[in-house]
């Protein structure tokens, strides 16, 4: 167990190393990094100051070491636009992103799990067909398209919901739906296949043989076990939602990390852009590690395999 966790941890550290190296190298080899780290329209003196500050005349490995050192201090640079440390900015937006992601997750599970169960129970019949069309649309409709159509319908024509901003539960509805839409389809598909797998297993046959009513077999015996992979996926997806919400947050002017990234692009605020991609990747590496460890705790087969 300890050995397994140590190995996973080492892999994660390696991933973080490669992640930082990737970001670091891309910035340095694709052009003059000094240009990225000064404000647009800066003078030659400013450029030289940045070169000095980042040690851009030093060998690459020296630069990398100081890059890592400042990362370790939580120093991701200063935002040009907000004039505050990027890390603080990121942390101040994180709760909003989390709120949006949680709401989107609730949407996606509320739609995905029941429809997945329905499709599995009625496999090959009408509701399964409806589910197929739904999942096809879910995976093919881009989120900005869903978002813009929602605004058009609910804000412009019906005037029921506010089209942008945050603050009330009403503000949350449309962005959460637009973001959760794609994931609802993914969760539906996994629920369906997971349910089908469980329904074909021996203990379900036994439960049926001993005369349990079908509703009880599905609700009590099948559903509980089928839910495990779905919840695992949902856990990972929550983190992914925080990191892919940029388009939805832009459409609805939701003040989360995605919006921060968009502002970073628009105001040519490069430290912000770099921080969002670094922290996003780091977050996903961390969650993968967490899930690997949880799996090992739950499932002895995985621990022993290592």
């Amino acid at each position, binding site marked *: 167990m300890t050995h397994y966790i140590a190995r996973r941890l080492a892999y994660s550290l390696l991933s973080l190393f490669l992640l930082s190296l990737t970001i670091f190298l891309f910035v340095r080899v694709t052009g003059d990094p000094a240009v990225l780290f000064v404000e647009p329209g800066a003078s030659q003196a400013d450029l030289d100051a940045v070169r000095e500050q980042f040690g851009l005349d030093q060998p690459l490995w020296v630069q990398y070491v100081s890059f890592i050192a400042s990362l370790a201090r939580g120093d991701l640079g200063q935002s040009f636009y907000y004039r505050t440390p990027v890390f603080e900015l990121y942390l101040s937006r994180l709760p909003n992103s989390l709120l949006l992601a949680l709401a989107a997750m609730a949407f996606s599970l509320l739609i995905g799990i029941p429809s997945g169960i329905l499709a599995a129970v009625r496999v090959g019949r009408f509701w399964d067909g409806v589910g197929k069309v739904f999942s096809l649309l879910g995976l093919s409709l881009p989120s900005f398209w869903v978002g813009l159509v929602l605004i058009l319908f609910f804000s*412009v024509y019906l005037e029921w919901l506010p089209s942008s901003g945050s603050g009330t539960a009403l503000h949350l509805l449309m962005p959460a739906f637009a973001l959760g839409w794609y994931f609802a389809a993914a969760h539906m598909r996994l629920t369906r296949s997971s349910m089908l797998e469980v329904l074909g297993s021996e203990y379900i046959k036994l439960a049926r043989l001993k005369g349990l009513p079908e509703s009880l077999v599905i609700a009590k015996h099948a559903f509980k076990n089928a839910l495990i992979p779905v919840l695992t996926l949902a856990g990972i997806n929550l983190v992914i939602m925080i990191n892919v919400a940029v388009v939805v947050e832009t459409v609805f002017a939701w003040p989360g990390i995605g919006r921060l990234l968009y502002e970073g692009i628009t105001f040519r605020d490069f430290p912000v852009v770099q921080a969002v991609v670094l922290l996003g990747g780091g977050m996903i590496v961390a969650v993968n590690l967490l899930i690997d460890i949880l799996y090992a705790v739950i499932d002895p087969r995985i621990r022993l395999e290592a």
Partner: protein
Amino acid sequence: MSMRSDAVSLPSRFDFIRLEGFLVLPVLILAGFAFMAIFAGVLAPHDPEVGTLAARFRPPAWEVGGSTEHLLGTDHLGRDVLSRLIFGARVSMVVGFTAVIVAGAIGTGLGIVSGYLGGWVDQVIMRITDTWLALPALTFAIFLAAIVGPNEVNIVIILGAVYWTRYARVIRGEVLSLKEREFVRLAIVAGCSKRTIMARHILPNVLNSAIVLGTLMLGVVIVTEASLSFLGVGVPPPKPAWGLMLADGKRGLMVGYWWLTVLPGSCIMLMVLSANLLGDWLRVKLDPQLRQL
């Protein structure tokens, strides 16, 4: 590590849909878009990049105030929406196809090398693949676009750089089983060099999978390009890209100029839907091994 995390980031797959009956439609739609893209210059009634400000925000012909002069209306600069949609098909298709090919070439190449050579080469390539897969694709693409600056060629390179990992993983897996096969062993015995074996014996056998993956990736890539353009780091204006049209269309959204968002959005949706359906059908038809994908 990322076995589970790609569960969501892999291309759309509709593993349980039998589509034979529907397939005519997606092929027709894609062919239609291709036709529009190729003959855009002949088909488009107006210049897509030049408008008359006097004729801005005209609604489509069938609405009150519309005219047959601009069948699908005009945008905030008075440019003809229909013409922009037609030229937009060209941007989406050219960027989509070339990016898929670039990503496919990188990913297939690295996948073959990684799977066939094994050892530390395999370790290095796969660790990089894992790490890049952990980066949220869109965020990574935005980051790259912010560094190199947006234009069509850079967008293709960026999309290639972001999406090759999907190919590398799958192709490597295939190569691992291929290299145990009789014909590869015979080639080794016959004295073929590693390079020859990879190029002559392995590559042709993984091409099927690469093509299927490419079709599945097409939808993903088109949406990413549209998203980048929508956010202002994709195809630069005044080029008529659908994502860019959506971003412009947001201006007229709150006053109900629906055609500026609904029309380009529908084009993206139709193209992506068709590509996904076609990819899924190909996957089932061409490559039984990928059904589990």
